[in-house]
């Protein structure tokens, strides 16, 4: 286990280098953002010195890493708010949205996929396939406002946007979850159809097991394996902040914080967001890998 996590260190270090480089690669610098166009050269030099931006790059990188190790992400250029505070506010919101969206995706996608596979070639299968392809093709910037119009403005069931009530999560989670469910439906169907053609399923049927037993005991466990990978990848993307969905639904998560910081050239916040997102991705991938090994004994030796 420790060895496994030790292999993550180079990845995390790479991400650290990249996020640090971000500050120095993009046009403009924090001093321009803070002082505007009309500040004198003397003011610029003074602020550069105060922020430590006049130090050699390696020294700056060393200080950056040291601060990070102490949990200090720095402060926002514009609001002077500690970035760790911004992350503490945004990350739980993104996590909650990701979990609910994933739950919606799984609870719609898997049953529909199974049903579609069992009815392969019938009208139900055709209908589900048509629906899921359409859902997968709907971008969040279109689906979100349509859901708002129908469920918030016309039916009045949910608020249009914001985080003011418990039900406010439904529409953004649906916007993300419906697209996800379409992918999961397609994956489940394909995977289950493949498994149902395997010899051991024929054997199970030959043993006289009921179709229900064949499906639940033998087919599903194998068929759902590829889904773990997909769910892991999707969860990673969701934790990276569903930028568009969070923005249109005024959901104060990581995605919105990231976009906001990019728009305002708040470099330290952008850096911290990218770092947290990358770290989440790495952790989720690692967790997916472990779940996969646990579920599929064949991969353990590898």
């Amino acid at each position, binding site marked *: 286990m420790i060895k496994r996590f030790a292999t993550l260190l180079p990845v995390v270090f790479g991400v650290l280098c990249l996020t640090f480089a971000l500050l120095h690669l993009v046009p403009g610098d924090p001093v321009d953002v803070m002082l505007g166009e009309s500040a004198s050269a003397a003011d610029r030099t003074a602020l550069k010195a105060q922020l430590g931006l006049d130090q050699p790059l390696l020294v700056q990188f060393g200080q950056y890493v040291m601060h990070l190790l102490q949990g200090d992400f720095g402060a926002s250029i514009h609001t*002077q708010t500690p970035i760790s505070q911004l992350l503490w506010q945004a990350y739980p919101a993104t996590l909650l949205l990701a979990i609910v969206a994933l739950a919606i995706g799984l609870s719609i996608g898997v049953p529909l996929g199974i049903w579609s596979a069992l009815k392969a070639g019938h009208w139900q299968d055709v209908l589900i396939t048509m629906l899921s392809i359409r859902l997968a093709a709907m971008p969040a910037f279109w689906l979100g406002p349509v859901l708002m119009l129908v469920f918030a403005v016309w039916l009045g069931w949910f608020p249009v946007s914001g985080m003011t009530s418990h039900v406010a999560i439904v529409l953004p989670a649906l916007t993300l979850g419906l697209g996800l469910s379409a992918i999961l439906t397609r994956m489940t169907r394909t995977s289950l159809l493949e498994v149902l053609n395997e010899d051991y399923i024929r054997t199970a049927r030959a043993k006289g097991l009921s179709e229900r037993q064949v499906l639940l005991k033998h087919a599903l466990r194998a068929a759902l394996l590829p889904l773990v990978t997909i769910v892991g990848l999707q969860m990673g993307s969701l934790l990276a902040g569903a930028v568009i969905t969070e923005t249109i639904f005024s959901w104060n998560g990581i995605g919105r914080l990231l976009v906001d910081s990019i728009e305002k050239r708040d470099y330290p916040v952008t850096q911290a967001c990218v770092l947290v997102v990358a770290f989440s991705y790495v952790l989720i991938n690692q967790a997916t890998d472990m779940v996969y090994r646990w579920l599929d004994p064949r991969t353990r030796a590898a």
Partner: protein
Amino acid sequence: MAGCQPDGSSRSLIFAVAQAPVNLDPRFATDAASERINRLIYQRLVEFDASSHEVPGLATWQMLDALHYRFQLTQSAVFHDGKSLTAADVKATYESLLQLKNSPHTAEFRHIEHISTPDAKTIDFALSHPDPHFAARLMVGILPAHLIANGHDFGHQPVGSGPFKLDHWQAELQLKRLSDGLTVRFEEVKDPNVRVLKLKRGEADLIQGDLPPELVKYLQKQSNVTVNTGIGANYSYLGLNVQADFLRDVRVRRAIAHAIDTRAIIDKVMVSHSRQANAILPPEHYAGNAALEPYAYQPALARQLLQSAGVKLPLTLIYKTSTDPQRVRLATILQAQMQEAGIDLQIKSLDWGTFFADVQKGNFQIYGLTWVGIKTPEIYSKVFASSSLPPQGFNRGRYQDPVLDQLLRKEDWPAVTSRLHSELPVIPLWYEGQFAAYRNTIVSYRPMPDGNWDGLTKVVFNPAAN
């Protein structure tokens, strides 16, 4: 009472804004939302009347000599924490601003050498060099001296003496009006469609500006929504890099002006009350110039001008703009119009940070931007004087004209605006009309020409609708 529902419970007026305020310390605030809210929370020494003349705010003033100004507090203002506003607070505000290393406003006041307070109502400013526009600069909200001394975080816990005070600011900012206790909550809703849906659904009472015209037209048709429009004073223009090939030739710049049908754009895709512009400051400004005639849309003349300048048609020009959908749409319209005149306008839509950095560095041929909230004619020197090349000023197009420099020094505004109109270092487009849309739950809100939110001081809940 305002803000009360029939059951006696009070509710907040919800103002859905495109961008939430960032920092409510007037010594730091630069974004439009923070500056608009700071106008409600703080009071300033000087205000501007409808023709943009400086008028007394908290104080009257006199110029003792070229280097000395005396301000006399005339209003007995009280800070939200109960302390009276005195000359010491004014001194502390400006002195603390001068000591800041990371404020974008400090540079403007570098020439203040000394501030003294002969008595509790009088503030004397001594300057290092003459500045006839000094009074007009004193627009920074006055902060209480005792809190400045304590290093108070005004950015998040503002304390001023204005008509609104901070109620709370957790996820969203809420202000309370001192006169009657009405609370206003500022909810950030970035997407314009969502702002409209929230207004329609009743989740917002008020929205202002930042909507594409078709959404404004949609709102005008809604029975429970009132749309108020008014003239605007914010100047949209095309910036030209006069050091770039061809653009240094005034005939080419005039050709571009003749290749744009601003009238048609205003009529077809902008809100009502939008006006063609000829100069940064609008005609009603005391330094405005109502005599200037807009360049007429004459693509044939534009072609002739280009050919006389030795340009081989089509002339390819790169137009940089932000990713804002309305800006991109306007760019495509300009592109189509200019094609008639033999100009192949290539649009480069960049994220705001990259776009603005390019503009500041002079890394452009043409860009489109808007000057917001400009009050003093000093802007002409800052934007067009040869001495105002970045980083000393905003002369982003690197325009250098000794004749204009002389006129600027004389502050002969009619001559300055005429010269600029004829030489066209930038192409004036329009002053976009202002509008506010609100549910019939509220009344008495009017948008202001520079888009500020001072209308909140007068707005009340509609007793008939509640």
